[in-house]
């Protein structure tokens, strides 16, 4: 799948997605989704931005099989801020990785809008991760060799070739600085990750996730390693992004209090969504 076709789908669904945002806190919204869920493929219109259908995933530990996901069905609408909660080790990260095309399910499908993405070739999945998804991790996962600005610019460097990057590097730097400004880190541009606090690192990671203007933000316990204040700050940023830019956010957490601040919360129990 090329990004241009996915962009086109995005545009066509934009109008309807906007309409649904009005009442996405209401019971009706989730009811629509549920009925849609029960009656597969009956709706042509994409109410959802990303969806998992009957996803199974197990790990092999020697001879043992560890079944982690056992038929996960989930749909996330465009502009929704969804929290997935579950106990530690229940497979939340695994699910998020599957949605972010970092891994492939053993069975089941993952859709982005109308397009199945779990069976795409590696190059297309690389591209999706670069352009369509923004990923945030519990342990920030910044490159220690690069400073904050460099880390934020990294997805742009990956996306554009050597000359493409060089040609536009002024623009790109401006964009990265603006994003870092937005997460209130303009005073830390030249700091290496080890010179930053946990909250600052996570904010850098958010800026990095946003630099390619993704359609979906996938956050794996973004506050898991932070104290309450810094964690709250991160959640505020995510809520702001969701509200002001209508960014679809899927956040995984084991913390009920954090999860409550999302639009909608689903539970992952024993490999299924409850």
């Amino acid at each position, binding site marked *: 799948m090329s990004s241009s076709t996915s962009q086109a789908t995005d545009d066509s669904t934009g109008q309807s997605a906007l309409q649904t945002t009005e009442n996405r806190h209401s019971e009706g919204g989730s009811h629509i989704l549920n009925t849609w869920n029960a009656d597969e493929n009956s709706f042509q219109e994409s109410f959802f931005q990303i969806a998992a259908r009957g996803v199974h995933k197990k790990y092999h530990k020697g001879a043992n099989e560890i079944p982690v996901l056992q038929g996960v069905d989930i749909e996330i609408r465009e502009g929704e801020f969804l929290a997935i909660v579950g106990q530690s080790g229940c497979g939340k990260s695994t699910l998020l990785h599957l949605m972010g095309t970092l891994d492939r399910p053993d069975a089941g499908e993952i859709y982005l809008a109308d397009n199945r993405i779990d069976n795409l070739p590696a190059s297309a999945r690389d591209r999706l991760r670069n352009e369509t998804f923004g990923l945030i991790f519990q342990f920030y996962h*910044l490159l220690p060799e*690069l400073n904050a600005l460099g880390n934020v610019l990294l997805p742009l460097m990956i996306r554009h070739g050597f000359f493409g990057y060089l040609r536009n590097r002024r623009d790109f730097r401006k964009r990265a600085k603006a994003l870092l400004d937005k997460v209130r880190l303009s005073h830390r541009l030249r700091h290496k990750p080890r010179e930053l606090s946990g909250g600052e690192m996570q904010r850098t990671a958010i800026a990095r996730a946003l630099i390619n203007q993704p359609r979906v933000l996938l956050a794996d316990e973004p506050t898991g390693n932070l104290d309450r204040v810094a964690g709250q700050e991160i959640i505020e940023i995510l809520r702001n992004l969701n509200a002001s830019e209508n960014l679809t956010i899927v956040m995984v957490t084991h913390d009920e209090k954090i999860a409550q601040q999302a639009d909608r919360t689903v539970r992952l129990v024993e490999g299924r969504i409850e």
Partner: protein
Amino acid sequence: MYKLILCWRYLQTRYIALASVISVTLGVATLIVVNSVMSGFTHEMQHRIHGILSDLVFDGHGLEGFSDSRWHMDRIRKIAGDDIEAMTPTVHVPAMLNYRVGQRWVHRQVNFIGIDAKTYAQVSDCSNYLQHPENRMEPSFQLREGGYDLHDRELGDESPYRHGMEMAGWPHRRRLATEEKAWLAAQKKNRPKLTIPERVGRSDPFSGIDTPLRAAESEAGVEQRWGPLSKSQVFDKATQQETGVIIGYALAQVLGHEGDHYFLVLPGDDVKLTFPTAGTPPKAVSGSFTVVDFYQSKMSEYDSAFVFAPIKKLQEMRGMIDPTTGIANVNSIQIKLREGADLEAVRDKLRAAFPPEIYAISTWRDKQGPLLAAVQMETAILNILLFLIIAVAGFGILAIFFMIVVEKTKDIGILKSLGASGAGVMAIFLSYGLLLGSVGSGAGLILGLLFVRHIDSVRKGVEWLSGQPVFDPSIYYFQQIPTLVDPRMIVWVIAGAMAIAVIASVLPALRAARLHPVEALRYE
């Protein structure tokens, strides 16, 4: 872009990788130095060998040689006329050089060569190697009045002093003659009747000559032993010379304990040469000759074996001249080709025209084949050994890269989670290897070239440190260690080192490219 940046950052932060590069640097530097010195030696040696040997040698098998050199030369000219610049006939014969040192006779096995001084100088640079400036201009078998080189011409005044050379030539000969006369007079006074020692067997011309000085022999005795004197019936040693010979420097020279050169024989001394005649079976003939100059090509093989004499004299003494026709035999014809002629092609043309059972035709390279091949083989083996050093460095790079890949597992996961492709990740490590290779071989190149450039200062430094001469010019005959930097060799060495560095980084890079992003991210 990120590839370059990360690659550069890794280079800056992983000094251990730079350590692995040091062996690449050293390997490249040694390769360059060794190759430069070896090709310097080879070049110098080839130059010298070629200075002695003519381009093509046309040999007849056996001591008898072949008849009528003029007819042969005409024929050769007809076959390869365009390529031929000059030709000269020579007579080669194994011989025994005999000269007297104090009370003892010294015998040396030599290669006695009869040449035509004028035309021989046209086919080879041998006259450059003579020790009298005028002989270098125009070689001659006439003894000079003096003025022989007191130091090596190429090495200058720094080189060992040649004791006795200041007297060499006619002054030396006149002194000898006076001494002999004085001795004879003293003998006459002491013992009214001079007894010449009994000759024991005629076949051995030197047996019984055991008197303290050669002067013990009366002129009559000389005549009896060495045949009728050619120039005058009364041979006056002070004013007359025997037929001139030019002998190899190493045949006459000995080293003094402080490194100066002394001579067992000087220009002006008489020596005796014994060699086989051309008949069947060959008989030994002996003749007395006067040394007129030394020949020093600095190829010890030649300097300790060659003795040159006029070809006519040799032909006469060996009985190579047909008494009825007056046509003389020769052993070989030396041919010089014009600049740029294809040696091998001309050789093959001549080989096709002259039957191989009678003639052996070879280029100077063929003649020195074993020596040059030995040097070449040595160079090849050294190259292999040194490349093994770089290969070992390659394994170092391999190990360190694997370490870095393991250490960077998480970063690789991050890059992949941000959309970097396997190829992109692989490129980081490949270019890292390339970068290390180029840094290493670049440093090695600079180091090697500096070493080659200042090799004599290095030598002096080592000599000063160790107190031992490392490179004695009087042994190697070179004032400086000869070096020749061949750009092609440099390109090969650098390319080889780079290739090894890149090949060594392929496996770790592949491993990095294959890393599963999720597992890499979970890696702690």
